């Protein structure tokens, strides 16, 4: 069991670092040419400044891959250095990083071994523990337990060594069978997190396409959705489009968290910004309610400091996950607000803490139901969170 009341997990993804002599690069804001002292232009230095100013900490840091861009060895090494730097700033004892498609030299441009750069990173990638490292490169996954949190690190870019496979993520049926065997043999963790680079479920809004879905991703999610293996959070990168949903399946289907990119240049049509997230797991609540949690998101634009995410730039500053019955909650809120002119959302949170664990889209649905079914209006603060509800 975790020893603290709250487990904090920071997510940093898709750095796309490159080694070059110019500040400007078509794919990324993170180049070795930008001085690290420039906290406005260097996205990771800016992030470190935010961490310091806001006194942010984490128990665990997750990086969903794409340390570098187009397999640039210098970029991968620089990206790895920056990830370790963020880990240090957050005072996190554990770092889980997986491999992204941009970290694989699938065209053998720099070395005949597509994973040469990753395999030779210092400190060792993805883990300093030799057994875990071996498992990652031979089985393409490993499982580890940190203070009651079970983490599976899955290499969805494992088959990127040829031209066809490099276009999408892949998890083999053999790997899923191996994982099932492991899950059968272990007691489920209170918190279970699977980290991979590619999206295990279709993620094609905003013309993002379906060409790069993780092959067999749905089988993987179905496995994790089996209640006897515990409640799961799947964290992935790749799309640069921050989003949080429940996977298809039953009531126990995994929460799927698509992390934003911290420093890649994002296709403008996506309408999102570079984002960084911290998830908080309330241990006591999880014992009562199952896997619930909240997250906070910060956003970055070039030449500006990191700041709390505004609505419309990806994931909101504050959100949650784990409670799926928003209609039931709406009825309970109505009782709390009855015979009152208005009530602050803080009071609702105090009396019905479950509202904190609604997905942003479910919170919106809840407010819609409050209005349509119970004649309760709401107005939101600058971060899109309710401030008061009333008639």
């Amino acid at each position, binding site marked *: 069991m975790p020893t603290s009341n709250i487990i904090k997990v920071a997510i940093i993804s898709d750095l796309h670092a490159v080694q070059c002599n110019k500040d400007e690069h078509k794919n990324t804001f993170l180049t070795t040419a930008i001085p690290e002292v420039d906290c406005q232009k260097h996205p990771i230095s800016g992030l470190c400044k935010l961490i310091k100013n806001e006194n942010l900490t984490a128990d665990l840091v997750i990086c969903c891959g794409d340390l570098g861009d187009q397999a640039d060895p210098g970029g991968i090494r620089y990206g790895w250095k920056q990830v370790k730097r963020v880990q240090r700033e957050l005072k996190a004892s554990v770092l889980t990083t997986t491999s992204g498609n941009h970290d694989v030299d699938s065209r053998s441009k720099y070395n005949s071994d597509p994973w040469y750069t990753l395999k030779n990173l210092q400190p060792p990638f993805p883990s300093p523990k030799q057994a875990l490292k071996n498992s990652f490169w031979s089985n393409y996954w490993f499982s580890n337990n940190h203070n009651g949190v079970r983490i599976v690190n899955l290499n969805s870019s494992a088959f990127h060594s040829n031209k066809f496979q490099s276009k999408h993520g892949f998890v083999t049926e053999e790997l899923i069978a191996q994982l099932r065997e492991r899950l059968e043999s272990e007691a489920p963790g209170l918190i279970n997190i699977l980290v991979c680079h590619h999206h295990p479920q279709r993620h094609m809004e905003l013309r993002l396409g379906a060409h790069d879905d993780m092959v067999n991703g749905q089988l993987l999610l179905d496995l994790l959705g089996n209640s006897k293996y515990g409640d799961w959070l799947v964290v992935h990168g790749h799309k640069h489009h921050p989003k949080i949903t429940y996977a298809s399946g039953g009531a126990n289907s995994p929460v799927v968290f698509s992390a934003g990119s911290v420093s890649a240049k994002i296709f403008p049509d996506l309408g999102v910004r570079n984002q960084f997230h911290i998830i908080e797991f309330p241990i006591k609540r999880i014992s009562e309610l199952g896997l619930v949690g909240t997250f906070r998101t910060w956003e970055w634009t070039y030449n500006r400091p990191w700041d709390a995410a505004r609505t419309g730039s990806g994931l909101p500053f504050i959100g949650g996950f784990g409670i799926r019955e928003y209609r039931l909650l709406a009825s309970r809120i109505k009782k709390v607000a009855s015979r009152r*002119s*208005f*009530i602050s959302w803080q009071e609702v949170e105090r009396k019905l803490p479950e509202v904190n664990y609604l997905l942003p889209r479910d919170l919106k649905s809840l407010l819609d139901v409050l209005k349509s079914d119970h004649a309760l209006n*709401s*107005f939101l603060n600058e971060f899109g969170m309710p*401030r*008061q*509800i*009333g*008639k």
Partner: protein
Amino acid sequence: MSKNTEPAPSPFDSFNARALSPEIVARRFIPSVHFEVLSRRAHTQVIGPRGSGKTSLLKMLQTAALEAWDHPKAQGFRDKIDFTGVFVPTDVGWNEQLNSIGEGFLEESHRKRLGDAAFIAHVHHALVKAMVCRVSRYKQQSKYHHRRVTISEKIESHIVKGIATAWNIESSIPSLISLKHSLRMRIADIWTFAQAEEFLPLGQRQRRFHAQGFFKPELMSSIASAVEMFNDGINDSEGRWAFLFDELELAPERIIKQIRDSIRSIDDRILFKLSLSPFSSQQLQAKSPLSASSGNDFQTIQLWYTHKREGYPFCSELLKGMLQDKNLQETDPEKIFGSSIFQGIDDESDEIKPYEAGSFQHRLLVKMAKSDRSFKQYVESRKIDLSRIGDLKESNRASLIRKIIPTLIVREAYRTRDSLRKSGVKQLKIRSRKLPKIYSGIPSIYALTEGNPRWLIGIASNLLDARINSSKVSSTAQETEFLLAAERFISMLRIIPCTDGPEGGRLTDVLDKIGEFIFKSVVLDEFSPQPYGELSVDRSCPQSLVNALGIALNSGAIVYIPPNKNTGTITDLRGKTFRLSYLLSPYYGIPIRKGEKISLSRIMNLSQSLDIKSVSSGDWKQLLMRL
């Protein structure tokens, strides 16, 4: 926007309080005597040039500022201020937007209606914001409270429903914070409505205007009814509310007229505190809210110091606060910036410095008597025995010696010994000193910055930040910074035209002539115990020049010397007396003191014959360096 309401240029605009929250303003606020007056329960107009602290003063009357203010005198003010401040910014950008509503496609009458509706919505938003600040449920825990009230949700709901009905607005939730949000949306709706009208048929415009709820409320009656509803809700029926209009001269004239017309009739629960620039056009002045109500009880606060010493205590406290903010161990400004060469010999000083042989004063007098022929004549004509000035009666010493010392210091700094040409014609030489070490130290820093907090903060910040391995700021660094500040100021003023002025040139051409003339009077001419230092604007001055000087006045480049205290804004500079800002003294090489008065037209006429005119051509600094 007319030329007279154009914003005057200001150096150090980054220190403008306009963009700062009340809490941030409160963090550094030093209460001056002006704040004492402003905090009284009376209609008040605050008049001052740019940077003189008008916005900070008004912002400090808000509940949020008073509650965040931590100062030995703060509690006294919190206890004393028995009204709620409603701050209404009337800044330039906002006013430009207001004026541009429907420009080019709407009739004037419709544009006015839209502009008025936007202004009224803006005032309503400010009023509800002030109400929110009073209600405990919306406040975080804080050390200090000012006029906080605790009301039930039911009462708040009742107040909001009443106000929303009176203002013809819907609030999704009957709470003050939701009403505030709705008013913000109303302001946006007005812009959207105006923009949409461009593409809609003209024929049904009247009907569409009539259907809009935001045209219904009238400014004064709507705020009076809202104030009454809130007061009744909190059981304080006589509670007072002060509407703090910043830079009111930028507001639409019809709004100013509305306020003026309302002042006499409005109930005494509503106060007006306005900030204005010193110079407003005749038309604006005629419509100025307070000028027309001379019989009413209103006060005028003049934010510039006719006598420089009046500003010293405020400057000293402000500078001490800055030193504390920078966590310096030494918080005595004089120990960091040194003392001024004028310290203790100023003609306004009560201190008597020793004049015995060997003293600074004695050495200066003797030196100048040797090198400056006209000064020697002055000494001889008044039968002054320089070896015995220490024995003179105080009254004689004050009239004969002490008052001329500042002039002599400047004269000595810029002149070399008188010499003769071969032809026998006397030829004057000017020292080529760039930095004569007369514009540094305490209290010269206070005088040079005119008690203008933005100037003092800007210059002192630069000086303190530039220190390297030293706790002190050298006099050279200070003079360089003051010269740079003056040059920045001059280059900002350079864009102001005076098209049909004496030379059809720029405002700075006129300022240069004034500065050069005073320099000539102080340094180049025969020694005079009272050289020129003030100017009066003649009746015959062309309007464009007067307008340009009006902008100079509003920006602080020239300073009005009123015949009496607190004379309010002025509509016409003609017949009035001014001096150049002391901030420009290092630029022109003139003393930080007043002088004899001369008319502007005489300066213009005489400057035609100045030898230095031909070479200066508006760049006096260049002249000094070349000479």
